[in-house]
């Protein structure tokens, strides 16, 4: 059993970072905390400081302005930690993937454990992604390739 498994056996506390998101994904993260979805029954809790957090939920395509703050937040989070990218923007840069003002996705700045694509992802998708990061459920998507035969 690795240190990560031991630490994350029971509950995971997350810290929510907005790295230039439009607020769509942030609202969906809030939605997962409502009684309707109720992530707290799994011990997942939103905390107010990265020093209490096990995981960072990052939304937004990582703008140039936010990069240094994001790195500081990452350093402030105690090890072992998970970085979860919520939304299409941190996953691949979204529609700002080649903009001068963004760094084109979270993978260019931090090591990401799980990507949750969606614009915005449904609250269920966020739940599923966090569960996947914890190793509770299996990944569903895989690359598809097709070649025409004559």
């Amino acid at each position, binding site marked *: 059993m690795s240190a990560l498994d031991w630490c994350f056996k029971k509950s995971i506390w997350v810290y929510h970072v907005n790295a230039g998101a439009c607020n769509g994904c942030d609202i969906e993260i809030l939605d997962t905390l409502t009684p309707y979805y109720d992530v707290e029954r799994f011990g997942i809790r939103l905390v107010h400081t990265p020093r209490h957090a096990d995981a960072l939920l990052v939304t937004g395509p990582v703008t140039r302005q936010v990069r240094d703050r994001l790195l500081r937040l990452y350093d402030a989070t105690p090890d072992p930690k998970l970085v979860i990218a919520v939304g299409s923007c941190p996953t691949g840069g979204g529609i700002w993937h080649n903009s001068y003002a963004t760094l084109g*996705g979270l993978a260019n700045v931090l090591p990401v454990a799980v990507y949750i694509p969606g614009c915005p992802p449904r609250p*269920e998708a966020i739940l599923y992604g966090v569960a996947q990061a914890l190793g509770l459920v299996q990944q569903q998507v895989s690359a*598809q*390739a097709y070649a025409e035969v004559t």
Partner: protein
Amino acid sequence: MLKHTISELKEALVCLEAGRVTLPYPFAPHAPEGEFRGKPVLNTRKCMSCGACGNACPARLISITDEAGVRTLRFELGRCTYCGNCRDACPQEAITLSQQFELSTASTSDLEIRGEFHLQVCRRCGAPIGTLRQVGVIRERLGVVPELQIADSGFLTLCPACRRASFLDNPALAVEVTRERA
């Protein structure tokens, strides 16, 4: 104090009336509403790899590369915004948006769709014109118009530059042009 207790009791009654509202989601599936737009699906039987979807895509995630007689159509769905413009732009109705939303992945390369289609090359210069399917579709459409059936279908296997050149090389047409000028 009493007021506070009464308000709390009221709240408890409201909660009792509402009952259990939490979804059993992770233990039971929760299907999205009918109009939900999830992961795009490419029907490779219908697709002719024309690239109309790539022009319509706001995130520019659909790329087309022509190499060695093969056209590669590539969807990098990591930055997809699920807008459905590709579905609306597709002339073959080959793209549909599924209801799949559990797309979380450890690597963005899992969100890729790749299709390889054979190219039709120009019979004079060898430059790619389009895919075999595209040329086939155009031939089919020309076939249903009676006035166009007499047109030389050989032009379909020429690239635009060679088509122009072969047109100008045609002596009969050249005579016509000089007559008009005079």
